[in-house]
């Protein structure tokens, strides 16, 4: 590929060369000689660059390391600087004089990635090193697709761009120690609580006296209360309280609505951060913590535990949960293609080149038979067959006689017979060539190239290309898979956030079922923390409220950390009526959600449950305080 500099140089040299050879050599032989010298120099430069490029690029290798706290790690922590180190080596070939390396940033990260770029010569003895420091604010999944290389010669005449794919994924774990999870005060009791124990008023094997009762055969002699037995003149047995560990189960709402970025961040990532902070702080106190993640389709549970490996498992689960992507818009095949094509161009540029992924002209022709308007053509074409009927022909001839001068009616009659056919032909032609015009042509071209790419990636036969071209549902499904694999985050315009609709019964029922099952399985009173967006479901919350009442009846405690509605971005005096209309809709959306949030608060208060906004700084301390209360000690946070 020639650069602008190369084009100017070769064009000038070519003009001088041709003019010199053909005409100007007549006056001065220096001119053709100069033209020929420049052209040969240019050719030699190209030859050298082409040989360097062809011999070096197949032997390129990329190795990537993410270094945190001085060592390479398979997972990284959020909010802690990460040192990204990418080494590009050419195992054979010549030295390329100039290679510019750009890291392809992870597509789903909302943080502004730093300009990760390096430039220099690249050869067998001169590897290139790309290093930069970045920091990820949100937990989730991190995927690097590879690197983009731009190669040039020394003078800047030639230029090539290629992508070395090296897809690798890392988990971004929620921060290990959170500031909001750390106690800011001093413990009133200067003693560590027993390992995770709290008093449970049920007969057990603890040390605190619960009650006295008559002796039953089989009771151990050491539990006999001798003094009480002497007073009552019968054997009396001491019953002790049960000492059980404090258990906390976190319910995380991973439904699609919580995966979208809002003005207050991504709610699901915030939930994962809060859950991680709670889990770490509780486990530091040797309490047991479990997590239940639910969405529209399934529920994943991690039973309460307090070991170190359990904490790692929880953090992995939370990172994977935070990394879930919002659903892609799925009802328009053209729009999905428009999203997927630039992504494919960025990651698979060489597979979209015309020499291996062709778009013949016939591909763009729109057959009229595929349209409902085909019947118009059929009727127009059928007209002559109808018109040759004697009765119709006679009628037409009479009509033509009235319209024209005597003796020339055959012309009108011929027109009656031929015109429909001509119209049908024009209809067929115009319908067909519409596919060759800009927007439709681009959409068809993108779809074919992507279809071929998907077919190759899946190692499918060529028939699959036609399937993707003709079957819209199969096409959309594959596009969605492609975008999800490469972690494309579809963000909505803040002005077009979906309006609060009808509550989703599925989500409510899934949460209620999870709560019922957990409460029913529990052996002693536990703390349940619901991290959820319940504002939309407030009108259908009965199943959840029933489950909450059941849990409360079994002496479990509940806290709801709910996603609070975020006010819309202030309008910036937009004069466009459409934008103003959208802004008004968003204002209405916010008011409606705020109203529902208040209603949710009142419903939960009636059910005896505390509601705290998820984005509040009190969210984590409130949960830890409740755990402390259950445990029986007070810590000021």
């Amino acid at each position: 590929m020639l650069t602008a500099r190369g084009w100017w140089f070769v064009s000038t040299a070519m003009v001088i060369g041709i003019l010199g050879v053909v005409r100007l050599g007549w006056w001065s032989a220096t001119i053709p000689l100069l033209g020929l010298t420049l052209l040969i120099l240019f050719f030699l430069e190209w030859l050298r660059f082409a040989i360097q490029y062809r011999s070096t690029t197949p032997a390129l290798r990329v190795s990537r390391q993410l270094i945190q706290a001085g060592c390479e790690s398979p997972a990284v922590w959020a909010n802690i600087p990460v040192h990204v180190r990418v080494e590009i080596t050419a195992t054979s070939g010549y030295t390329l004089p100039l290679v510019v390396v750009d890291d392809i940033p992870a597509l789903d990260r909302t943080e502004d990635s730093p300009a990760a770029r390096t430039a220099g010569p690249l050869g067998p003895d001169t590897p290139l090193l790309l290093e930069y420091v970045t920091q990820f604010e949100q937990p989730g999944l991190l995927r690097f697709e590879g690197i983009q290389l731009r190669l040039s010669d020394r003078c800047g005449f030639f230029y090539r761009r290629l992508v070395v794919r090296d897809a690798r994924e890392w988990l971004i774990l929620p921060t290990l120690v959170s500031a909001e999870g750390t106690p800011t005060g001093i413990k009133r009791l200067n003693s560590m609580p027993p390992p995770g124990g709290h008093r449970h008023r049920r007969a057990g094997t603890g040390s605190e006296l619960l009650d006295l009762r008559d002796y039953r055969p089989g009771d151990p002699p050491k539990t006999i209360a001798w003094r009480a037995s002497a007073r009552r003149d019968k054997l009396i047995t001491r019953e002790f309280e049960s000492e059980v560990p404090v258990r906390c189960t976190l319910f995380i709402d991973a439904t699609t609505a919580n995966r979208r970025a809002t003005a207050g961040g991504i709610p699901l990532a915030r939930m994962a951060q809060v859950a991680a902070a709670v889990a770490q702080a509780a486990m530091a106190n040797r309490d047991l913590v479990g997590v239940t993640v639910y969405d529209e389709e399934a529920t994943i549970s991690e039973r309460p535990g307090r070991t170190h490996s359990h904490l790692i498992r929880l953090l992995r689960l939370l990172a994977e949960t935070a990394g879930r992507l919002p659903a892609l818009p799925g009802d328009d095949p053209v729009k999905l293609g428009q999203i997927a094509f630039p992504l494919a161009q960025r990651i698979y540029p060489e597979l979209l080149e015309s020499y291996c992924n062709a778009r013949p002209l016939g591909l763009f022709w729109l057959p009229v038979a595929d349209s409902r308007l085909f019947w118009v053509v059929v009727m127009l074409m059928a007209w002559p067959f109808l018109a040759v009927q004697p009765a119709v022909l006679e009628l037409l001839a009479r009509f033509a006689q009235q319209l024209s001068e005597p003796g020339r009616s055959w012309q009108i009659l011929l027109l009656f017979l031929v015109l429909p056919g001509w119209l049908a032909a024009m209809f067929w032609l115009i319908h067909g060539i519409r596919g060759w015009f800009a927007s439709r042509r681009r959409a068809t071209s993108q779809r074919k190239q992507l279809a071929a790419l998907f077919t190759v990636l899946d190692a499918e036969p060529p028939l699959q290309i036609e399937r993707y071209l003709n079957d819209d549902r199969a096409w959309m499904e594959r596009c969605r898979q492609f975008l999800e694999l490469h972690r494309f985050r579809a963000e909505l315009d803040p002005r077009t956030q979906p309006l609060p609709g009808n509550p989703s019964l599925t989500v409510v029922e899934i949460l209620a079922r999870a709560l019922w099952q957990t409460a029913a399985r529990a052996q002693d009173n536990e703390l349940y923390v619901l991290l959820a967006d319940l504002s939309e479901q407030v009108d259908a919350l009965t199943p959840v409220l029933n489950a909450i009442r059941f849990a409360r009846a079994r002496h479990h405690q509940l806290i709801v950390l709910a996603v609070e509605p975020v006010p819309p971005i202030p309008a910036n005096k937009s004069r466009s009526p459409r934008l103003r209309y959208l802004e008004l809709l968003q204002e209405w959306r916010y008011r409606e959600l705020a109203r529902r949030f208040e209603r949710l608060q009142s419903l939960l208060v009636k059910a005896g449950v505390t509601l705290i906004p998820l984005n509040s700084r009190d969210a984590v301390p409130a949960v830890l305080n409740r755990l402390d209360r259950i445990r029986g000690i007070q810590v000021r946070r």
Partner: protein
Amino acid sequence: MSADDSKTEYAILRLITSWLPDSPLARQYLLAGIAIQFILAVALVQAGGSYSLMIPALGTLGLIFRWRAMPVITLILFVFFQLFPDGDPYLKTPSDIPGSHFRMIDLLLCGLIATSIYCHYNSLSLSLQAIPDDPLPEPGFPGSRMKRSGKNNLPDSIVRPSSNTFEREFLEIVAMLALALFLAQLAWYGLTHLVVDFQAFPLLRWMSEGIRSNKVATVWPAGLSPPMHRMMIFAAAILAGGFTCWFAFWYWRLSQLPRLTALMIVNDVAWKEHRREMQRQERWRAWASGGTLSPSLASEVREWLQWLLWLVLVILIAILVGVGAALFRTSIYGI
């Protein structure tokens, strides 16, 4: 010497050298380019024509101020002053083709011009811009909100990093230049001594002295003029060289195709061969399985109406243009 004196000296030094680029390699190319411009000035004075001193003067300014267009302007000016040494287009010099091979002055001028252009381009790559800017990503992709800077609202340009390889690079340029000069002289010799003969094989033969001295086109082989002979040989040489290189690199690329690209080529060829049959089959299958999301009848009719509107508009414009032309003709010629 006091500290103030050294500061002043440093400031003066900085002022003097402020036009030099930061990269050491670029500075070396720049200074080499300026030196070559001086030698070129001497050579042009020797070759005659004082107006042509404008070329090294402008070339030096272009190097110092890093003007991107200066190499091309230098070439055009050089050609102009070669044709008209006194700057007067009406004063023509006689042909020097017969004795134009392997002359020292030609070698010197061509070599100096080509080296100065190479130095200029290398200096630009090292100090201004080495590689074109990539277009910004599509909206919605990371980097699409990249801040642009500079007066041209462009991202920061990429320059070639400096290294300590000036001697080696310069030697390579000189070696390549010597080869190019030699090949150019050979090519020019061939162009002026070969003629196209459609009756001979391989269509070329050496020109005899008798033909060369006779400048009447009719007695030249194939009845063509000498420039046409040179043009045909030149075009044929470029085509033959281009095809050979294309074929060699095509085969090289084929021999080292990556797996995915090879699979893509095979799939694409198979698709192109059978797409009509496959299309028929898949269209019916998609229709039967409900996979086709047909546009609504209303949207189809709407689109058709838009097309008809455009068609009517085009016809109306054509009629208006026709009527306007007729009226114009009537007003001018009265017919």
